């Protein structure tokens, strides 16, 4: 059965769109429930005498945590699909179960960490605990839903476009695991900078790195009153979140696009000619290398621009 090329590329573009949404919500969720690297400051604050009203969600780094929720969602979706449920029901139910696990882990993490800081007089604020569960669950649901949908489409890509030979060989839970780790690693590397450097230390001067003496002395007062995570997510949603989404979307775009372009140019499609396999791989590799070199040049230009425009450090 020949592959319909247009359907194949259409499903690929849908995956890219889902990836963009997934990583944006992943970053916002890790801002709503303070997780991973900037959380070290939230942990440090009571130790330097700054009692706070932040949600201290310390479930490891974002990569294993997202691997957990997405894999649980993937397994539940897989169980439902194997019983004959339609994907449009199976995937959201899986995501809901994944998010239930997420909320359970968040509660134990926040309560456990705050209790272990008894000597620094950090109380457990019940309104912080109850009030952040919903934002965490909803943001996380969006991310988990999109990742599970990506895993489903990829493990059935060939079937959806005409020939099951093009399905990804990994099983659905395994694909959800892989993308969960990747989305967590990316969200932790890009979006957390905006939260950690900019929003957590909002009352320090803009335009310089945050010095070691500032560590622990996070901004605890908001525009009006005491700050909680709900004030932070709204800020990071304007820069950090979309940038992170863009990162993952572009990565998925390059990954899938260069493989498909390689297959198309080498005439591997639409009938999956075995003889054209090697040249399809070669073209994919060359396209990827070229894109990487363009990015290295892009970084050179960016750093040079920043050095010229911002100039040397002024002040003491």
């Amino acid at each position, binding site marked *: 059965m020949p592959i319909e090329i247009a359907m194949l590329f259409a499903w690929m573009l849908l995956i890219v769109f889902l990836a963009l949404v997934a990583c944006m919500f992943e970053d916002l969720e890790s801002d709503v429930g303070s997780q991973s690297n900037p959380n070290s400051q939230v942990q440090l604050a009571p130790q330097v005498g700054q009692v706070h009203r932040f949600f201290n969600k*310390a479930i490891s780094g974002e990569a294993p945590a997202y691997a957990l929720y997405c894999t649980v969602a993937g397994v539940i979706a*897989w169980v439902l699909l194997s019983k004959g449920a339609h994907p449009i029901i199976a995937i959201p139910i899986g995501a809901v179960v994944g998010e239930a696990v997420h909320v359970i882990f968040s509660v134990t993490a926040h309560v456990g960490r705050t209790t272990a800081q008894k000597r620094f007089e950090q109380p457990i604020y019940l309104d912080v605990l109850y009030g952040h569960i919903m934002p965490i669950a909803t943001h996380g649901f969006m991310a988990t839903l999109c990742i599970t949908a990506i895993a489903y489409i990829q493990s059935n890509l060939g079937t959806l476009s005409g020939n099951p030979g093009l399905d990804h060989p990994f099983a659905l839970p395994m694909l*959800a695991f892989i993308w969960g780790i990747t989305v967590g690693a990316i969200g932790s590397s890009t979006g957390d900078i905006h939260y950690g450097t900019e929003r957590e230390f909002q009352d320090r001067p803009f335009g310089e790195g945050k010095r070691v003496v500032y560590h622990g002395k996070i901004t605890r007062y908001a525009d009006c009153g005491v700050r909680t995570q709900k004030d932070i997510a709204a800020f990071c949603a304007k820069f950090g979140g979309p940038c992170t989404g863009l990162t993952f979307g572009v990565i998925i775009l390059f990954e899938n696009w260069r493989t498909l372009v390689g297959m198309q140019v080498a005439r591997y499609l639409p009938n999956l000619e075995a003889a054209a396999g090697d040249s399809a791989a070669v073209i994919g590799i060359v396209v990827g290398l070229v894109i990487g070199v363009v990015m290295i040049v892009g970084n050179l230009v960016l750093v040079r621009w920043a050095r010229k425009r911002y100039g040397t450090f002024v002040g003491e």
Partner: protein
Amino acid sequence: MTVGGGPVVEEEKAEGFTIPPDVKQLGIIAGVISSVILIFPGLPAVIKAVGLILALVWGMDSVRKTSKYGLGTGVPSIGVLAMGYGIVGALVGIALVSKVVSKVGDSVLAPAAALGGVLLMGVVGLVSGVLSNHEKIIGMKIPKLEQGMTELGMAGTLAMLLQFSIVAGSLEFGVVLDKAISNGLIAVMFILSCMAMFHPYNACLGPDERRPRTMIVSVEVSGLLCVILGIVVAAVATTTWGVSGVVDGVLLVIFGAVVWLVCFVKFVRMCFEEAYSTVGTGMIKTIE
């Protein structure tokens, strides 16, 4: 993720047997009971789940023991290391079982060969502990790192093998491959076991951390794992116990849910009592 909080205090060794058991007693009890349960894959899933919970709590204890001295890269890494070894060890275990079965036929004690995988992985853990701690090589200089890594290798393998046995109903290579590995279930086993090992200590990290409280979280996460495994067993597996595995799976879900609920409520209540204070809302203070 890792923020030290004051000097490390050695815990007093309890005299005699205590509830919860102290570190050394827990290791021996968990190791022995899990190994014995492993040898009989025909047992109902609930009993295997008890062995699984013991193995995971043992792993959590080792993670806690080693991380107390500051690993430098965070608590999660050593938990993931344990389960990474667990996967390789479990594969060796089920391969050994298949070899024994093909040599001597289907004997009742054939699954005992899986313990060979556990021991081999303990050796690999010991080697990596020696390489990491020896000052001429990596030189982490963490006390008892070798013992910790050996225990982690063994606990990880035991946990993985017990989960294979729950989902696939037997420890033979072909059956496990078909029912637990090719359909991707091994991914959820891997990551939830990682979490059961490192999340408790990570979630309770701080100067006022108390071992009994941390252990409750470990049992709670294991209960959650049992619920997920029970759903899978009820839906797709065919164990030899009960009506095509559905009864087995449903019992496991109920067991896991009860364990989870009891431990979760107990932990949260304990934390509310032991925190500095638990208030509905309030202002914040700055302590100079």
